[in-house]
């Protein structure tokens, strides 16, 4: 049992409640296909996009969306981000241009690793043919901020633009950072999310060497048979806007980003801190930031990696942070359907969470069958479940934890039965 640390003072540091932040567009490329709608529909139906132990975006063909030159000048992780961003901008009604002062619109895209495919390719060329054969595009392809820069360039966003690097929490940190930029008044809108394309032999072998990935090649979070995560690739991008700015242009938000918190274990390079102290604190602070209590949480989108350690410690953290509510709240993991998208995971999962709330469902933890006696939450086995929504408005949290001890939690809200779902 985890002892519950005292709650931090409410996020009244903002003084009056901070500027509200809404989500007006979302886009995703995942192993379930191209499109945020495809992701939520197929996951809700209990489908899984993992094949041969990897979550590849097989249906993604960059030149279907990008010119040959754009595609050549972008590593796969940047290509994925550009396509997800295009979808998000179109959904927000931005396809004819940015509806705000472009100097006040940012681009913040996270990644765990960056352009590792380009790095290994250029290193191969260097070893085989020498220094002079290395491409002048090497650096702009491999740099971890490439996706943020490319999205800003393509959409003409001239506010703050940078990458965020925090392993498997990068997508959530990016969105949280973007939220803070809007709340602080630094930006009126931010295009934000995460992207990853690290299904390269070196990365696959390195994750396997540390015993993090599944030997069976099956992602089954919270199941007694879980034996590690399954690597996936993809991108998720959201358009966040200040609620006042969105209302002014008559935009119909998909949902609201209510709260965010980030903490650090300061404990171990890869293992979660055993008491869950800082993961619990991240969940609590995110709820406080959102101005909601555990009883308001209708759904938990877990980090749920399918590793023995994460799923056990995350279960304990949810129980400690949500108290009595933990026994009743449905908890499921998007990674059961697409694998672990590393630096894209938090963003794709935030999009999946919003989609779930808008449909008024908790999608299932696909493949969950055998209960681990230590893990006693409701992991939504079998099929999607309807959520109770008294007034139609539903609140959820989405957890992300990264190697390095990074914890980031987002709190989202949406109205179920919203048009377009």
């Amino acid at each position, binding site marked *: 049992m985890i002892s519950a640390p005292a709650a931090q003072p409410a996020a009244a540091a903002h003084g009056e409640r901070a500027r509200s932040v809404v989500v007006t567009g979302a886009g995703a490329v995942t192993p379930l296909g191209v499109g945020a709608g495809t992701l939520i529909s197929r996951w809700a139906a209990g489908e899984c996009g993992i094949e041969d132990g990897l979550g590849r975006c097989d249906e993604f063909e960059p030149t279907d969306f990008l*010119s040959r030159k754009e595609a050549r000048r972008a590593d796969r992780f940047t290509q994925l981000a550009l396509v997800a961003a295009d979808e998000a901008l179109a959904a927000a009604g931005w396809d004819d241009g940015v509806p705000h002062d472009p100097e006040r619109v940012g681009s913040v895209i996270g990644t765990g690793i960056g352009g590792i495919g380009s790095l290994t390719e250029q290193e191969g060329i260097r070893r085989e043919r020498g220094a002079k*054969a290395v491409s002048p595009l090497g650096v702009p392809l491999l740099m971890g901020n490439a996706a943020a820069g490319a999205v800003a360039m393509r959409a003409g966003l001239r506010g703050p633009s940078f990458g965020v690097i925090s392993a498997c929490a990068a997508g959530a940190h990016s969105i949280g950072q973007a939220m803070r930029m809007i709340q602080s008044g630094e930006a009126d809108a931010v295009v934000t999310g995460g992207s990853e394309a690290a299904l390269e032999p070196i990365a696959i072998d390195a994750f396997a060497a540390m015993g993090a990935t599944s030997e069976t090649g099956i992602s089954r979070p919270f199941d007694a048979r879980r034996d590690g995560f399954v690597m996936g690739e993809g991108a998720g991008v959201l358009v966040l806007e200040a609620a006042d700015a969105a209302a002014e242009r008559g935009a119909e938000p998909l949902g609201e980003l209510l709260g965010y918190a980030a903490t650090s274990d300061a404990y171990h390079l890869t293992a979660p801190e055993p008491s869950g102290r800082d993961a619990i604190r991240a969940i609590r602070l995110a709820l406080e930031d959102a101005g909601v209590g555990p009883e308001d949480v209708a759904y938990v989108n877990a980090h749920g990696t399918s590793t023995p350690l994460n799923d056990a410690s995350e279960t304990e953290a949810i129980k400690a942070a949500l108290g009595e509510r933990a026994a009743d709240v449905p908890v499921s993991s998007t990674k059961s359907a697409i694998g672990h998208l590393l630096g894209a995971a938090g963003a794709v999962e935030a999009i999946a969470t919003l989609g779930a709330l808008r449909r008024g469902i908790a999608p299932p933890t696909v493949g969950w069958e055998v209960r681990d006696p230590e893990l006693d939450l409701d992991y939504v086995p079998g099929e999607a479940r309807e959520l109770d929504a008294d007034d139609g408005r539903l609140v959820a949290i989405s957890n992300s934890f990264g190697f390095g001890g990074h914890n980031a939690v987002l709190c989202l809200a949406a109205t179920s039965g919203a048009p377009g779902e």
Partner: protein
Amino acid sequence: MPTAVTPEAVEKVIFAGVEEIGAEGEITRDAAFEDLDLDSLDLVELAQIVEDEFGVELDGDAVKDVKTIGDVIDLVVARA
């Protein structure tokens, strides 16, 4: 063994190289790099293609004044 440098051979390799790099628009001798949406990074790539094929080195100084595809072809032929 590098390919022998003739104006025809150089034109063929450069036209193909420029297309591979992702030039936008019709590739002719008179086409300007700027109009084909090609920049300094593309020119470095083109120089690498030329060196691989013909063994002719085009350093930064040599290509800084080129404007058109024809300029590069002439430069390679002159330097062979």
